[in-house]
């Protein structure tokens, strides 16, 4: 093994795992709520509703913490893909996952504490944090307060439309999480990325990057 780089500060790691637990909890409770007869995971529906609502509020808090933290530390820049990230960078990264990785080509992106994310990560994380998650939170809040937001509901096509959007977004986030979890195994070693998110240190493969 080569050098180890301190990639993820403690605050970031705590946020990441809290966020992961919240997504997992919301997914499981959401499964109960969506298919209460087929998947009554928590027994009573009241319990599942309570947990889903509670985790939803914690996700709102979690999102705000992430936003404030990254805005104050300028870390938000890491999530914003550049024009070249959206074209050449994304294609290069996609080519690597589709072809180069099987030929053990060097990773096209060299992660550093200031440039942690490859172009595809930037695009997907930006989509998740700036679009999917806020929309999930907003649709969830509309569910919680249908009377108070009656006018808004009428504007967006009623609660049924909100329900369908919330469900679709939830499916996308779960699919994203599956891919995200798998791609953590594509680091220098299978567990290197996961380990770095626990210890903060990412070990680099010697000679992987110039």
């Amino acid at each position, binding site marked *: 093994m080569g050098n180890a780089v301190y990639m993820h500060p403690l605050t970031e790691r705590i946020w990441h795992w809290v966020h992961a637990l919240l997504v997992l909890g919301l997914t499981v409770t959401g499964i109960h709520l969506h298919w*209460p007869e087929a998947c009554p995971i928590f027994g009573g529906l009241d319990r599942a509703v309570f947990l889903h609502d509670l985790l939803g509020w914690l996700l709102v808090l979690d999102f705000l913490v992430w936003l404030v933290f990254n805005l104050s530390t300028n870390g938000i820049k890491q999530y914003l893909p550049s024009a070249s990230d959206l074209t050449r960078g994304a294609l290069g990264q996609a080519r690597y996952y589709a072809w180069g990785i*099987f*030929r*053990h080509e060097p990773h096209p992106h060299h992660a550093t504490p200031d440039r942690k994310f490859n172009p595809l990560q930037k695009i997907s994380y930006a989509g998740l944090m700036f679009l999917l998650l806020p929309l999930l939170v907003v649709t969830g809040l509309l569910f919680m307060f*249908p009377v108070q937001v009656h006018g808004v509901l009428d504007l967006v096509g009623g609660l*049924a439309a909100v329900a369908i959007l919330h469900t679709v977004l939830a499916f996308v986030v779960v699919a994203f999480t*599956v891919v995200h979890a798998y791609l953590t195994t594509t680091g220098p070693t299978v567990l290197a990325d996961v380990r770095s998110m626990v210890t903060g240190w990412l070990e680099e493969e010697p000679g992987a990057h110039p």
Partner: protein
Amino acid sequence: MASNLLRTLCLALLCAVLSGAAAAQEAPSPAPEQIADALCLACHQDSVTEPAWKASPHSVKAGFTCQGVCHANVTSIQHTGQALPALACLSCHPTWQAREQQMAASVHGPLGLTACARCHDPHTATTMKLEPAQVTGACTSCHLATGLADKHGFLVRPEVHILRVPCGGCHGDVHDIKAGATEHRPCSVCHDDRAALAAAYAELHAWPDNSLLHLEILDCSECHRKDGWVKSCTDCHGQDSILSRQPAEGGLVTFSDPDMVERYGYVLGATHVKLVDWLGLCCVFGALAVALGHATLRILTRGRRA
């Protein structure tokens, strides 16, 4: 009061004397006695009073006498225990044929031909149409002893409804009631001023989070059901949510209003779109399959170097 008592005693005495006289003359007299209406009514005041009978169209217009048409089988002043003959209302009222057939096929069919007279008292009726109070009186004269209040326990304040609402108002035409097919009408048929109703009972219905919305869009009967009152959110919004089901046959469930469900009705199952579910599951399991396939290829190409 005293004069009434005295009058009743005198009439009873007269009846007794006449009965005694008739018994004394019980000799073989095949010819039927001609009994004047006044004499009948002297004893049968519980059926009709003389003034009422004299005002009745059967008496005034048709010129019926008691013994003349309906009670022709009474041939003697002494007729204790003699059954009333089958009434033949249709012989004079042939236009009621269809109604009679309808009645025979209804839940009241077993009452037979005397059924008409049970509600439309031939002694007193001045018109075939009964006033609401008369309808309720006619119904309760038979049904009061059969657990009427219990059967209407699903209503809000059943005793008030039974007292004030004509039975036909909810159960429809009494001549055409079929067993087990009573129509329960939405409360809004009568209580159409929902805003006033909601305001009047707001305090009682404050327990759901969005009570106002419920009062605005639901019919009372959707919560005040025959099998009991809804007392918790999960009675409707639960995993056995009635909102996600079709209305039960003959039941009160009318939650299938698509407009309501579309606009307000997020309830479990109500907004399920199978296509969305399938696409979503394909998305999730597709991602899983791609990941597994990718991992497999990585394992298979482990030794290959660029």
